[in-house]
């Protein structure tokens, strides 16, 4: 398989672009693998890639019930950031940020990572003080953070209502300049292509229906395409982690909730920063196609339906107009929903489970997309060695029993409140 380069683009261009070939195989499942990863989204594919690249485990399969990146990898708002308060989260996501910065080169696939900055807006002196605290915590962990006053915000994001008459007047904000966006589908495709090149079997339309185990641990998975044996199984199926874990008799501190996102009709460049609205909950950026990409809170009740309800859409639109009154005549083009693993402390779970050989990568709440590279990196380490990497040691499942929860918001064990 050829590397992508300027020369390859010219060569194919001269031939009228008729010579491009599929970039990953479509193999039949083998009877057994050294490791199986369930879930062909960004996390599963990244895990397989780093298993092969960092740990030289090449006899690996990724099983996907639908198509690659058809779940939450293709449903998020593409934001990448590492602006976390708590040490364990900050270090983990910052490792991810560093991987993002070299990802297109590493994968030889343009993931269109754009470090346009992520700005959190504050609407009171008190809120700005909590941002100052988080910014200082970030800097202590080696993460870039800048506290902005109202004038700085006005210079960074022209067009926002910064008047004292705004419904929630803006006091300032916390900016992470290295944050930004990436092309979400490209992340799945880039990892799939790179993993396939290292021998990983990517098997689509293969639904796992059961997990087989004996007294020593897991022995394989029942699938819609037959039994596949492996003594090492990793779950990367956020949204349905509880369903898969239940197949092995494991209960998780997770509920499934629907999170909606939406895009407006495309317009000319108008917003070159990711803006998050701290008064209610809105995050908005402009895609390369010109659409405003927006999201807000989860709908707030358990749901496995990949669709949401109108109150949240109305709320998100109202937040947008409170910030940017001039967008009032934009029309919403599409809305959709994805199913989140909402954990009891709002932080992810990556690590071992009570069942030997079964590993869990889930509980991503709203934050899975930006974590994709770091998640794959540490999950591969955990699956290859049987022990967590230092970066996911605190993200273990046992933290709930030990009282070592990682609750960024201090919301308590109410998954719909994180």
């Amino acid at each position, binding site marked *: 398989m050829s590397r992508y380069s300027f020369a390859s683009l010219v060569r194919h261009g001269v031939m009228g672009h008729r010579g491009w070939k599929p970039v990953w195989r479509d193999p039949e499942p083998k009877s057994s693998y050294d490791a199986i990863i369930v879930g062909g989204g960004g996390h599963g594919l990244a895990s397989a890639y780093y298993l092969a690249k960092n740990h030289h485990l090449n006899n690996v399969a990724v099983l996907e019930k639908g198509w690659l990146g058809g779940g939450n990898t293709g449903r998020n708002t593409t934001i990448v950031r590492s602006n976390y308060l708590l040490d364990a989260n900050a270090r983990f996501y910052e490792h991810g940020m560093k991987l993002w910065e070299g990802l297109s080169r590493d994968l030889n696939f343009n993931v269109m990572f754009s470090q346009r900055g992520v700005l959190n807006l504050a609407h009171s002196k008190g809120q700005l003080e909590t941002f100052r605290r988080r910014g200082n915590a970030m800097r202590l962990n080696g993460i870039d953070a800048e506290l902005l006053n109202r004038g700085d915000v006005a210079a960074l994001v022209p067009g926002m209502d910064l008047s004292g008459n705004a419904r929630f007047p803006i006091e300032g904000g916390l900016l992470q300049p290295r944050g930004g966006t990436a092309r979400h589908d490209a992340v799945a495709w880039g990892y799939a292509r790179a993993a396939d090149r290292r021998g990983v079997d990517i098997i689509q339309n293969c639904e796992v229906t059961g997990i087989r185990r004996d007294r020593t641990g897991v022995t394989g998975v029942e699938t819609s395409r037959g039994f596949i044996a492996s003594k090492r199984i990793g779950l990367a199926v956020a949204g*349905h982690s*509880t*369903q898969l874990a239940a197949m092995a008799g494991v*209960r*998780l*501190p*997770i*509920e*499934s909730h629907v999170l909606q996102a939406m895009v407006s009709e495309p317009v000319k460049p108008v917003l070159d920063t990711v803006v998050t609205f701290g008064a209610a909950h809105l995050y908005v950026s402009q895609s390369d196609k010109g659409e405003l990409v927006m999201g807000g809170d989860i709908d*707030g*009740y*358990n*749901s*496995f*339906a990949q669709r949401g*309800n*109108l*109150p949240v859409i109305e709320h998100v639109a109202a937040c947008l107009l409170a910030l940017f009154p001039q967008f009032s005549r934009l029309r919403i083009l599409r809305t959709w929903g994805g199913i989140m693993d909402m954990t*009891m402390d709002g932080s992810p779970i990556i690590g071992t489970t009570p069942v030997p050989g079964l590993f869990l990568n889930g509980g991503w709440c709203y934050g899975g997309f930006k974590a994709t590279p770091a998640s794959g990196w540490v999950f591969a380490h955990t699956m290859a060695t049987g022990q967590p990497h230092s970066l996911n040691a605190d993200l273990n499942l046992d933290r*709930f*029993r030990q009282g070592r929860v990682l609750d960024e918001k201090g919301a308590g*064990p*109410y*998954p*719909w409140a994180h």
Partner: protein
Amino acid sequence: MLLIHCPHCGPRAQTEFSYGGDANVARPPAPEETDDRTWTDYLYLRDNAKGSHAELWQHIFGCRRWLRLHRDVVSHEITSCSDLPRPRTGNGS
């Protein structure tokens, strides 16, 4: 929009209600005598059923009563909605 048939106020939009989570979670009666595992299960572990789900809602912009619903979490069909039984009061002294 979910339409919830409050037994006191009639059919009302979901925006009048506040969600209270899984209705089958029972607080262990004597926390000080409960071991860590049972307490962890109560605080954090949920069945997260994909199908009919028993859940609590409070009619905060209506009668303010707590209600117990059965709702299908895939189709959103609500099959029952009833008052939460009032807790038995103590002897009042």
